[in-house]
């Protein structure tokens, strides 16, 4: 039950997040969408490690089978990496906002087509 709900949630999060990523025109919104989508993939890995009645992968923590520890370790790395990517992306979004006075993807693309005229 838990695993099923988690997996369904993971897929839904990928859908919602990527939908935002595509349809929103503002770069920060896109990054928010990406965040949610990426958290879907991470959740999927955690759900993969789970099994009915599992306990945390810590020695001596109750009876029952242990959850698969490897995905947990991978996911910890992935969470940190997502944060790093986000921080860097935000810096360059701020850069574009400073130089082009917009975060709108379409305006940036129009500018690119016209050869970046001085604002």
């Amino acid at each position, binding site marked *: 039950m838990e*695993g099923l709900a988690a*997996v369904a949630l993971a*897929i*839904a999060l*990928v*859908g919602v997040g*990527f*939908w935002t990523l*595509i*349809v929103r025109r503002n770069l920060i919104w896109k990054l928010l969408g990406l965040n949610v989508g990426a958290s879907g993939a991470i959740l*999927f890995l955690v759900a*993969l490690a789970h*099994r009915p009645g599992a306990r*945390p*992968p*810590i*020695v*001596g923590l109750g009876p029952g*089978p*242990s959850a*698969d*520890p*490897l995905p*947990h*370790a*991978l996911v*910890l*790395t992935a969470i*940190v*990496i997502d944060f*790093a*990517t986000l*921080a*860097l992306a*935000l*810096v*360059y979004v*701020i*850069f574009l906002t*400073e130089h082009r006075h917009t975060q709108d993807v379409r305006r940036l693309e129009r500018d690119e087509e016209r050869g970046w005229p001085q604002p």
Partner: protein
Amino acid sequence: MKALAAVALVGLMVLLALGVSGVFPRPAVPSGEDIAAEWGAKNVVAAIILGVRLWDTLFEILVYAMTMVGVKLGLRLLRWERPLPPVAETPLLRRSADLLLGPIVVFALYVAVSGHLGPGGGFPAGAILGTALLLLALAKGVERLSAEIHEPTLEWAEYGAIAAVLAVAGALLLLGRRGSAYLIAANLLIALEVGIGAWVVLHRFASSRGEV
């Protein structure tokens, strides 16, 4: 365009569901308790991160460190001449910030040191430390923050921490020394590195003026 996107996305979700349906139920997996014992840990995840898959973790730390560098360089590209909007500052906030500082540092240290026994470890500890430090600093006002902090000092501490982690990792990879003392030291070093790094990144976001 939107229609195409919707079709593609629905297709992707169906695909994911199809794939996922083939994965469960999963076969039994090793619990890794023998590995944890070998590394002197109770938390298997800690033994994996700091032991078995240390090679990944090294690059993870590196990702983090390079982000700090990238944020610094990126923010330097900006051309801010004007002061930033003010951050709320009240005496109550300032006083509670002073009171909270001690417990938060102790809690972060606890999360780091006990990371090989229970949930925790260097990364969350560092994140807690960095976030809390900046929150408290912001309560005192950005101007005072910038005046009190000497950036070169921070950078030295940061790179020193990375270098220490590299040294521990190198010794471990080449010599194969294991034990809970190593895990505690590694967790503390990572916490230090991540904490300082998070603090530096947030600090720069909050107060950087650019140089151009």
